[in-house]
């Protein structure tokens, strides 16, 4: 009854292949997008925007990028943190050297630079597969962090070795830097996520996405039917790094404000990989669900005892939080090894049949 699809006929290929073929879905998603653009900037306080929603959006973008590479093209990567760092340091260098370039342009160019670096580190993927590739990308993670730590040019010779986001405006409104407001930074992050999630969704539905999946499922078979593994894999690395690069730039410019290389260490790579695995490999929605799970659940667990007025010592609280969080991860992986996105898919199937399952 929730989905009344009676009368929804597809008369063209275009309508049959739409991202949301069901009218109800389309309406809900459009309303939701409208809501996320309007409600949080007006209603949420700075804590929610700055400490919860902005990191969620940025991690979603990074997870989407990694999902293209790992979930769709099947190339396991542990270099996400490194590629994010490339984006962040490129954005910093670009915007300090050429302040006249619009910050949106800076983010896009940083993404391209990250894509270039990703291509470079993607080359071994032609020969190395599976876990061995993970180790190779791990090398990129360590190399890139070492590089940014080692060469002072990347931080404009600052003695502290940190990069700081300067004030930059879009259409006359400050969106980055210490003087920008949280709602504007949120909108900036949301804008990027919305556009690039749409692009990613369309990528994976089209020829490129299909060739990725062909490579993922059986690379020799894919090669026989005419998918060029070199081009396909490198494209996956490039596009994935592009996403991670933009996420990295946003990480510093919209979220942290200033950062050192430690902000992009191996933990970030693992975190994003876990988001992809928990959310669902090979699902754009999964990237968002995974990011939400990893970012929001710990914050919820930290705040929950406060909300119910349980005065526990903070250290104990932290340990409980870690235990509950770990248990939840195991629980979800047992209940649904294909991730939260699959859970949602099952729910939706049931909703479509309800109340007359047959």
């Amino acid at each position, binding site marked *: 009854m929730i989905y009344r699809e009676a009368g929804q006929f597809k008369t063209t290929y275009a309508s049959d292949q739409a991202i949301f073929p069901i009218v109800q879905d389309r309406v809900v998603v459009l309303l939701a997008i409208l809501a996320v653009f309007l409600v949080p900037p007006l209603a949420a306080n700075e804590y929610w925007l*700055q400490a919860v929603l902005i*990191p969620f959006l940025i991690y979603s973008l990074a997870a989407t990028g990694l999902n293209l590479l790992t979930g769709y093209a099947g190339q396991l990567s542990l270099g996400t943190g490194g590629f994010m760092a490339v984006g962040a340091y490129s954005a910093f260098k670009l915007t300090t050297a050429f302040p006249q370039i619009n910050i949106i342009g800076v983010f896009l160019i940083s993404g391209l630079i990250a894509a270039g670096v990703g291509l470079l580190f993607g080359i071994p993927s032609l020969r190395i597969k599976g876990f061995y590739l993970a180790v190779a990308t791990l090398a990129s993670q360590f190399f890139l962090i070492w590089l940014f730590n080692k060469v002072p040019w990347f931080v404009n010779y600052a*003695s502290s070795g940190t990069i700081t986001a300067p004030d930059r405006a879009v259409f006359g409104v400050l969106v980055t830097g210490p003087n920008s407001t949280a709602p504007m930074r949120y909108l900036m992050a949301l804008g990027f996520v919305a556009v690039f999630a749409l692009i990613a969704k369309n990528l994976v539905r089209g020829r490129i996405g299909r060739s990725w999946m062909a490579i993922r499922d059986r690379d020799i078979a894919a090669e026989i039917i005419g998918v060029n593994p070199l081009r396909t894999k490198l494209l996956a690395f490039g596009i994935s790094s592009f996403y991670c690069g933009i996420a990295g730039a946003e990480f510093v410019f919209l979220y*942290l404000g200033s950062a050192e290389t430690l902000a992009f260490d191996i933990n970030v790579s693992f975190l994003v990989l876990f988001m992809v695995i928990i959310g669902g490999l090979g699902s754009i929605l999964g990237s968002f669900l995974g990011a939400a799970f990893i970012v929001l659940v710990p914050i919820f667990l930290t705040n929950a005892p406060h909300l119910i007025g349980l005065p526990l010592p*903070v*250290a104990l609280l932290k340990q409980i939080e870690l235990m509950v969080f770990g248990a939840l991860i195991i629980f979800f992986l047992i209940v649904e090894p294909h991730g939260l996105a699959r859970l949602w898919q099952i729910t939706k199937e049931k909703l479509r049949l309800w109340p007359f399952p047959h």
Partner: protein
Amino acid sequence: MKRNVLWIFLLAGAIIAAPLAPVALAQDKGSIYIPLLVYRTGPYAPSGIPNANGFNDYFNLINERDGGINGVKIVFEECEMQYDTKQGVECYERLKGKAVVVNPFSTGITYQLIPKAPVDKIVMHSMGYGMTAAADGRWFAWVFNFPMTYWSQASAFIKYVGAQEGGMDKLKGKKIVHVYHNSPYGREANPTLEVLARQLGFELTLLAVDHPGQEQKSTWLQIRRINPDWIYLSGWGVMNQVAVKEAAAIGYKMDHLVGNWWSGSESDVVAAGDGAKGFRSMTFHAAGPGFKVHQEIVKYLYDKGKGAQKKEAIGEVYHNRGMINAMLNTEAIRTAMAKYGNKPLTGEQVRWGFENLNLTEQRLEQIGMKGMMQPLRVTCENHESNGKAAVQQWDGKKWTLVSDWIEPMREVVRPNLEVAAVEEAKKLGYTMRDCSKE
């Protein structure tokens, strides 16, 4: 029947209201709210726990004994951040609402929060850590790093080495190695050491150790080859323990290995056992439980079961440091109250208090910390104050001061600091204040 419904409603109301009660108390009008970013868990917990306990003990002492600062209660709340920058920022955003001063407890988080401080009107006190350039108060009005910066500390170390060698001219040709944590924190001392190496003619070698510092074999192999006269160690957490162990393993003379003040606590040396004996470190306060303030916390807190930790841990390096940090916050707020009245203050008023803090010898005696640290005075230009450093040594059981109070080489540090301040301020788009008009 109706009465039952009424009861249920009352009960439900009580349950809903119960969690609100402590919050309402915390927002009581007559109080000052100070959030504490602590790290009682995670890899740095051995340093974080005594530090946080020091804060708790001192604030509780003020509340129990004096009923707060001049009668205005201190309300403080801990937030666990595991020494992780992102969690620290989350904590800050969550608790900043009513805050007037925040102690970030980590150089990484300090860098994050410096741009936010003037916007949120919250005083940032990074006591002996954080951004050195922020000591120029003309540019960084909201950031304070007294009693001393990393740069002054490094210069005090060189001065100490000079004194040990029998004169600053004897430093010529001496080999000094700086083993540092490869992060903004670890790198802080480098520019000062480089300047002094040029001026005084000693040979400086900089050896970076990557986070977290568990692997230092190659570093100490290099040290063995260089065979330096002195080693300055800027480590943190496990890196210190490993460094001290490695130094002992290669048979380096331990009293020529000097840590900075984040590399000289009990947890850094205990792991190395007897090998650590003789290891020295910089400090800006004495360790040990032998001061009047310790008797006070035992009397008012520990004897009543209100102490934050085990009694034996009183006076550990980081416990004392936490208490001193809390004391400096308290005294700055007291200074502000002298001007604005004994009432809850705003961030701006507390900032004035920090900027005009004059901690005299008499005041230290009243507080019960005479001899524990040196008097200091903060001014508008100078946010690192005129604090002094000292050197302490580990004898296998406890840390004891082994030097007089050392005045850093301000004539060397300050000009470079002012140049760096302009650089850092330019990044944030700050303008310089005129301190004569403050």
